[in-house]
């Protein structure tokens, strides 16, 4: 049930973001991108929850030795259907730590791009006196 609400939230945010991106006002487009990037961040975090507990990428030393050979990095067990790493015992208490790192990076990148686009939008407003996308096109040559 929790998953359902998470999915609904992500879908709604995507919808609102897309609606805003299709507006004529440049500010609304930028805010739309912000909302879409937050929807994607939620989506990434949501990808870290496992139902079967076979996908936790923590390299355990003994299991690395039990795998295909000592010191080898490649130690998935494809025959047993273990696609990620290593643990077969189901872990339901914690989630994939990697996605949290991914989402941090994504947030930082989103911040940088939003800052840049906002500055650009401000300069366009100074230059043209409007941030309406359609009027900008008419002003052009």
């Amino acid at each position, binding site marked *: 049930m929790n998953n359902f609400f998470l999915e609904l939230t992500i879908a709604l945010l995507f919808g609102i973001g897309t609606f805003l*991106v299709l507006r004529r006002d*440049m500010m609304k*487009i930028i805010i739309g*991108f912000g909302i*879409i*990037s937050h929807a*994607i961040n939620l*989506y*990434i975090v949501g*990808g870290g929850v496992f139902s079967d507990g076979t*996908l936790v*990428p923590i*390299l355990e030393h003994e299991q690395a030795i039990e795998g295909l050979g000592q*010191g*080898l*990095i*490649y130690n*998935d067990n*494809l025959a047993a259907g273990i*696609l*990620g*790493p290593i643990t077969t015992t189901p872990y339901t208490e914690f989630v994939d730590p*990697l*996605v949290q790192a*991914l989402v941090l*990076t*994504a947030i930082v*990148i989103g911040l*940088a*791009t939003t800052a*840049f*686009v906002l500055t*650009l*939008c401000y*300069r*366009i407003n100074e*230059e*043209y006196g409007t941030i309406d996308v359609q009027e*900008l096109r008419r002003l*052009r040559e």
Partner: protein
Amino acid sequence: MSFLMDNLPIFLIAIPLLMAPITILTKGSPGLQKVIDIVVGFGLLCLSALLITTVWKHGIIAYDVGEFGKYGIVIVADLLGAGMVVLNCLIGFLGLVYSYDYIEDKSLNQTYHSLYNLMLAGINGIFLTGDIFNMFVFFEIMLLSSAALIVSNENSKVTKISDKMEATMKYLVLNILGGNVMLIAVTSLYASIGSLNMADITLKIRVLAEAGAVPWHLYAVGLLFIIVFGGKAAMFPLHYWLPDVHPTAPSPISAMLSGVIIKIGAYGILRVLFMMFAPFQAVYGPVILFMALVTLGLGATSAIGQTDVKRMLAYSSVSQIGYVFLGFGMAAMANAAGEAEAATLILGASVVYLINHALAKSMLFLTSGGIIHTAETRDMRQMGGMVSKAPMMGVAFLVGAMSIGGVPPMGGFISKFLLFDAGLRSQFYMPIGIALIFAVFTLFYMFRGWMLIFWGERDPQYGEYSHHKLSPLIVAPVLILAAIVLILGLYPEPVVQLSQTIANQIIDPQPYIDAVMVRVIR
């Protein structure tokens, strides 16, 4: 020396990344800043040459950043990546030399150098990384720095700042959307495959496909990747940003955009379509082939009517990237039909095409900068008779026009010949026929541009040409690139051989996988 050799791939990313703050700190003394930058740029070029010779001799280099094996970030220099890095460092270095007299001092001494270095670092990172999320991060570094560079001012005030900002807005909006789509694709891939390492993903998708257990949504994920990289490379439905952005950027940046940055899309398609999603080639091949045909037709027909010299070159870029993608589509279809040898031949030909186009088009954009500098307009109808005023630009533009048009003895002839020959051998008669028709269009618009600019007389109502002689810093990079284009046409064997080896490595990625996966943790 062995320290250098052990850490060679990371240097190509770390040095320009480090140069960005250094050039900011030396902002007070522009002379010092320029000297440092040019020395380091040349050093990077040497390092990239060293990298490709090492990879050629000793095979693929895989380099761990951190010690997490395939769960951490791996930097992989295979022949494709190393070759693209050489291309980037060469064009980047020449563009940097060109910038000194072309970019306005006020822009140049502030942030131009650090942004330029950040862009080089981002592009090198994209080509060298072996991790799909890391590739996204480098994408964004490249995107932001190149967007900021597009807005920088030239000495000749031909392009209005407001035009530049509008074009940059278009570029940014489309590429932010592209970045978001890529993030969705990467996350979906990670959630279903459990890895971000490209070699690992390749292996796992292959195993899943052999077992017949590929989840259906992976097809959609692959299509998302094609949309992302197609958008970067200006493939048909997403091509409309390019003819606005490339002409408004200052010429050295246009050269980087057209020479290297749109090739990032082609590189990504090679990695995604032929390595990671290799079992799905039967589905994606026809899509790419169709889009490529539309792209090359649309670009060529639009270029004919242009009066703005840089806009014509930009549409020509759209058309030429269509030819590269045509090769990819044909190779994917041939490979899906089980003809691996024919696929290798076609793919090698399109890699040759990619290299030749990168060199010729960046040279043409640099030349157009010289032309604009002399004529102080971008409208070709207001030019004419420039051959007596700027003879070197005339020679370089002719070399470029011949290469893009596919006239021997230039590099462009070799690449078109190889591509069409390989396509006909695999019986792609229809696509090659269409491509041939538009090759005639290409010849027409390139020579129309050359004649409009350099032949005849200039109408007196548009005034005199600028009396400034072009500085040697503008002429030298153009002539070096023109010489390379000519040499690649007269003696193409090394490049053809390199491209065939690259194609072999892509069609059969086992060496890549072995190099990344079967390693002892340091």
